[in-house]
């Protein structure tokens, strides 16, 4: 019971915070940060694309840490956290690939360039994590499904940095690198806009994560209450699912 209440709280405050920071970040990006000398207006996509990529990768790492916790404690709630984190990171990851592709078209004239190591590594990571849901779906036993999904999340989480290293080494640096300057060489006004956008995107991720957790917990709670009141007949069987099932254990 307490866990459900925990997930339901502060959702309104978080949503407001997300809306405010994201709006402020985009406003700064459009009206405060200077135009890029080379790329002009198109460079503004940087303020969506890069924060999204950073947040998605952090989400994958977070999922890996939650998966380690799940393997250590066998607590199904950690599996749910890991599942929701990967789910949201995958959605953001699709956004990263689309915005990256648009940016590549605008600045280099091609929808996809293999010379951009960060984007290529991201594609590989995305392809790997895209098998997470089919993997879960093809294991019926909920306990085993959770355990194997956690093993996958740990292995994939450790794979991410190794993959970035290998892909980066394989590139010949023919293109000017915008990302390398993201920490150091960015003008102060751009940096401020970027940091606010990054904060906004992180807040968006946390908020969506909380919403999905709350929704999953509430429907599990509802099922177990229904079962208590009306017996097994009152609950429709869920059938096979890729999502972790919490309801039966409570």
């Amino acid at each position, binding site marked *: 019971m307490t866990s459900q209440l925990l997930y339901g709280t502060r959702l309104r405050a978080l949503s407001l915070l997300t809306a405010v920071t994201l709006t402020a970040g985009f406003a700064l990006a459009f009206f405060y940060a200077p135009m890029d000398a080379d790329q002009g207006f198109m460079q503004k996509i940087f303020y969506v694309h890069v924060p999204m990529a950073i947040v998605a990768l952090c989400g994958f790492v977070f999922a890996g840490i939650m998966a380690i916790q799940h*393997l250590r404690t066998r607590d199904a709630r950690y599996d749910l956290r890991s599942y929701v984190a990967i789910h949201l990171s995958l959605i953001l990851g699709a956004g990263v690939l689309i915005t990256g592709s648009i940016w590549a078209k605008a600045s280099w004239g091609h929808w996809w360039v293999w010379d951009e190591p960060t984007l290529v590594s991201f594609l*590989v*990571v995305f*392809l*790997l994590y895209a*098998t997470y849901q*089919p*993997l879960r*779906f*093809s*294991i*019926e036993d909920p306990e*085993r499904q959770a*355990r*194997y999904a*956690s*093993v*996958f999340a*740990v*292995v*994939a989480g*450790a*794979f991410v940095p*190794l*993959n970035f*290293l*290998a*892909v980066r*080494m*394989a590139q010949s640096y023919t293109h000017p690198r915008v990302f390398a300057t993201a920490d150091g060489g960015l003008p102060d006004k751009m940096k401020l806009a970027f940091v606010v956008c990054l904060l906004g995107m992180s807040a968006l991720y946390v908020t969506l994560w909380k919403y999905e957790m709350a929704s999953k917990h509430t429907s599990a709670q509802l099922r177990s209450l229904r079962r208590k009141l009306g017996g097994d007949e009152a609950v429709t069987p869920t059938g096979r699912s890729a999502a972790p099932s919490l309801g039966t254990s409570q």
Partner: protein
Amino acid sequence: MRRAVSALLRKDLQLELRAPQAVPAMALFSITTLVVFHFAIQRGQVEGDLAAGVLWVTLLFAAMLGTSRLFVADHEEGGLDGFLLAPVDRTALLVAKAISMFSYLVVVEIVAVPAFAIMLLGPTPGAGALAQLVLVLVLADAGVALVGTMVGALAVQTRARDLLVPLLALPLLIPVVIAAAKATTPLLAASAGDVEARWLLILGLYDLVFGLLAYAVFDFLVED
């Protein structure tokens, strides 16, 4: 531990010797793939980066075939249940399976690499290039065997077994492909050069990371 590993390994190799299943299929598949490559890229001879690409795609796809068969016999005939009842460390199974996968790959390469050299490769590599090629093959095989053991153990318990193996293993093996293809390119070029040390380093690092990772997670894959 050592006795358990050698018993498991003996069982695996004996099974493969008495009723060959995975290795002949992998070898045949790799040669067929070379023929397919000949027609698909429409070349009689390849060299340099194209040769490295053809070789690694062929070996990798053959390895996928072996990976999806690695645990099937144990799963279907109850070998895994028997192993779980025995009072031995579960890491023994990881080590034994990785070694048998590694030896399958070596046998396949003994067939496939000369076949590749005869059928498609333009320049003939010298003794020095050959020795370096063997080193790259050994390092890459270790990585493929470790990832294959993990993915095979994971996939054998699922319904979509044969579908999941390549989907999971290929993205995980991309660093191996990058490093191995880059490393073998100068060896297969018309004017043979030497392997760049950094690619061997990447392969070694990959083997180390995935060896530790497999050691850490394997216990959770062979429970119940």
